[in-house]
């Protein structure tokens, strides 16, 4: 994921970020890691420790990107997403959310993604990769960690029952290939090289998958969740 830094990031670009996490230590750590504005271009404009605070801070500061923890007092990340829905879809300066969590339970991951988050990374991510992901989300792009790609592949795995909405409930062959390579740990640039397509095309495939994940009728996802005793 690092290879995009020179293309999109760099100190000449700025992104305003709000950190939402109920652990102060973790916020401090992230702040120290990515908040050196001169070097990274990331400016942390606000912090919040629970759902109510998060909504207030996000409304007041209107950041470009929110780093959102999945487990939060007051209803969790999903609740923040629900209450900020209008800001997400705003035509001007939309607020984008990137889920940042220590959990790798499928229900948490799929939950925030369906709630409208543009991506999901785990807390073990390195500072550089996180900065890179933040910029990518700012561009409206989707950020898939290998693990998230695995979850999605699993959720959309071909089933016997015919999907209700063919376009929404199925991944195309190409999207599946792209996801598989992400799950195998490839960076976008490497995927592009492997599949003989441009990085832009990789990005559009990933965004398409994210859209399907957020909008598809619940048919496949519900079945998937049921099979794992998540619902």
């Amino acid at each position: 994921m690092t290879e995009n830094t020179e293309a999109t990031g760099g100190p000449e670009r700025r992104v305003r970020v709000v950190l939402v996490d109920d652990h102060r230590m973790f916020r401090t750590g992230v702040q120290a890691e990515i908040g050196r504005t001169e070097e990274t271009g990331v400016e942390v404009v606000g912090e919040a420790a629970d759902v109510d605070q998060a909504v207030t801070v996000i409304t007041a500061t209107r950041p470009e990107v929110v780093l959102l923890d999945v487990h939060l007092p007051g209803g969790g990340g999903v609740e923040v997403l629900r209450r900020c829905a209008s800001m997400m879809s705003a035509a001007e300066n939309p607020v984008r959310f990137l889920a940042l969590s220590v959990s790798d339970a499928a229900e948490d991951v799929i939950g925030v993604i369906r709630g409208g988050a543009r991506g999901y990374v785990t807390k073990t991510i390195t500072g550089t990769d996180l900065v890179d992901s933040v910029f990518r989300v700012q561009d409206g792009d989707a950020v898939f960690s290998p693990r998230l790609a695995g979850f999605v592949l699993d959720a959309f795995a071909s089933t016997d029952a015919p999907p209700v909405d063919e376009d929404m409930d199925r991944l195309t062959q190409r999207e599946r290939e792209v996801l598989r390579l992400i799950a195998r740990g490839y960076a976008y640039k490497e995927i592009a090289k492997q599949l003989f397509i441009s990085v832009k095309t990789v990005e559009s495939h990933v965004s398409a998958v994210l859209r399907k994940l957020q909008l598809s009728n619940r048919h496949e996802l519900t079945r998937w969740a049921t099979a794992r005793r998540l619902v």
Partner: protein
Amino acid sequence: MPTATTRAASSLASDPEEPPPRKLYRSADGRLLGGVARGLAGHLGLPVVWVRFVFLGLFFADGLGALLYAVFWIVVPLGVGGVEAPRSVFETAPDGRRRLRKPDKGQVFALVALLIGAMIFVGNVDMGGKADRYIWPTLLIGAGSVLVWRQADNARRARWMEVGRSRRVLQLARGLAGVALVGLGLAVFIVVRGSAAQLGNVLTAAIAVLTGIALLAGPYLVRMTQDLSEERLMRIRAQERAEVAAHVHDSVLHTLTLIQRNADDGGEVRRLARAQERELRNWLYNPEGTGKDEDDEPENLAEAVKRAAAEVEDKHGVPLEVVVVGDCPLDERLTAQMQAAREAMVNAAKYGGEGGAVQVYAEVEGRTVFVSVRDRGPGFDLDSVPGDRMGVRESIIGRMQRNGGTARLRSVPGGGTEVELEMERASE
């Protein structure tokens, strides 16, 4: 997918303690009647047949065998486990936890009642003549009781083993049959003792008395049941809290202490933290793995991949990120593939570990199982590897080919190495 991962339960702390005392359980597996003989055989380490013969022999000694069997049935709780290996019978309690079951008062009372009943029965039989009339109704009642008692066993068993729907009907039928037998036996008693004409009167009186008791004691009974279930709920909650506390104490606190002590050794700290993180993650997010023994062999692909990755991670101190899509049971070919994958992971951790986490990806698609292991190390040229280095050629490529699969190795000097293993599952 984190489907069937074992819950690594408090392995750190339970080591120094001595094994739990051997406890006698009736066996739920492969039992003929109550599982007494099987349970005993397991406990004593004898073949089941011997125990059964002893019971049978004792049965001819004035029915002593039957009496003994009944006593065991009542007093000994039902357990799970195979009986061939004696130890598994006692250590595995119903829900995987260790249970300290004491014979409760109800069971002791039942035992005493049964003894008295049996003595009366034997006494009556010995008198001969007139007593013959009582034998049949008594036997009827006995058979009915056995049916119902066994029913109770099944109800208990159903709590920790899921019982299919269709069996539930059968159980209901059996319960009803038991009640009917007991009822019939009692009716015959009444008919034998008095005359059939009095049956109506007796029944009316009995019903009147029962109704009266129900009216008087009803409210108390309801209250008592409510109190009991509430108390049970509280106890379950307290137990769960205690278990969480115990787990956190055993594993997390233990690891944190070790980390403090080894604060200067970065590698060791990372290893401890990673192992603990993995364990806690499993415990928190994979509740379906509950109660599995950590030592037993993985049965599914996903579990096998995760297990292998965890072992390599612990041994070589390099993080492995594992993503599994789909799952399937392991067969002989897949086991070979797992061995090859493990070898690939070891190589990746050894030679490519400094480039960051090793990516392990496994996917089950239809009948094909695909595994890729990728590192971001310096990479190497396969052709330039000396011929005496058999690791890659034999353990990975050769093993896959021998078992009908394919292995591909891609390595870019400076760009990491990727091993792709593909195998068809054996046909069922």
